[in-house]
């Protein structure tokens, strides 16, 4: 009997440990179960266009603004219509209730910052909808997987940050998962 209890306890320990440690996200398009910023995995035919979204899951506080840098291989993907390819996602209050600044002048690099503002007050992002940003790409390269890198390098220009309406920075995400475009 003692042996059975010991074995059962070990099984419970293993299950608990697996459940706690597996919180880094699922690597796909499903929403992770911890505070994560993650990119969409998209597929596109050679020469075609696709939109890659950047999502936010389970923030510990409601953000009113964010900034981020996205890196991509410009020999394989190009922005459709230049700067117009970079648009806020559904989590951001619709225009004119936000301020955005974006820069794609360096090929392969997108820098963007967004805050919610209705002209009189700061407006929080809608965290019920997790879509922060949409980027429309055209596949110009050979078939293969192209990373959509969400830059988390310390000190990088426009390093990924989220801010509250109180102008306080929210702690960094537990996990950041890059997106990808698979050119077929």
């Amino acid at each position, binding site marked *: 009997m*003692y*042996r059975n*209890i*010991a074995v059962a*306890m*070990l099984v*419970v*320990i293993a299950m*608990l*440990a697996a*459940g*706690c440690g597996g*919180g880094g996200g699922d690597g796909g398009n499903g929403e992770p179960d*911890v*505070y994560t910023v993650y990119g969409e995995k998209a597929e596109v035919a050679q020469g075609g266009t696709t939109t890659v979204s950047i999502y936010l899951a*389970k923030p*510990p*506080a*409601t953000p*009113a*603004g*964010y*900034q981020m840098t996205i890196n991509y291989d410009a020999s394989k993907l190009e922005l459709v219509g230049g700067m117009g390819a970079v648009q806020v996602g559904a989590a951001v209050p619709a225009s004119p209730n936000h*301020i*955005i*600044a*974006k*820069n794609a*002048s360096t090929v392969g690099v997108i*820098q*963007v*910052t*967004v*805050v919610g*503002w209705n*002209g*009189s*007050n*700061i407006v929080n992002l809608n965290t019920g909808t997790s879509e922060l940003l949409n980027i429309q790409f055209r596949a110009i390269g050979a078939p293969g997987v192209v990373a959509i890198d969400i830059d988390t390098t310390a000190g990088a*220009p*426009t390093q990924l*940050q989220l*801010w*509250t*309406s*109180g*102008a*306080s*920075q*929210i*702690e960094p995400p537990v996990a950041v998962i890059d997106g990808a475009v698979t050119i077929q």
Partner: protein
Amino acid sequence: MMMSKRHYAIAIITGAVILGTLAAVLLVGCGGGDEGPAESAAATGAAGGSGGEEAVGPSAGPDPGDMDSDGIPTGNDAQLIMDIVVDPDNYDIGEKYIADCNLNGVVETGDALKVLRAAAGEIAWPFSGGGPPPPPFPGDSPPPPPDI
């Protein structure tokens, strides 16, 4: 080798201790995401513009955040700060200095939000504490010529 009842009992006690530790870790590290502390610094959210922000002293030029030098915090100031955030190489050090409202040496989205808080009347403006700026040089007259 066969394990005695004593060995099993020790194993069960050890397992119970590990279970308790895991439960504590789960409660603190895994399950508290929705209610954890929100911000890296306290946001007072002082309404009515009566303060809540520490004055940083007078400046020689425009007040921090007053990018268009009109003396009023607006969405336009925030937009100009955000333009610097995404394209810092195209702006000079003076503009970055004015944009750095939270005085941390980096122009970031939080600086724009701080200006917007002032525009909304949530915090006092100007951030420099108010009052006329000091003259750009000590005294109003040019320095005397050097003795030859």
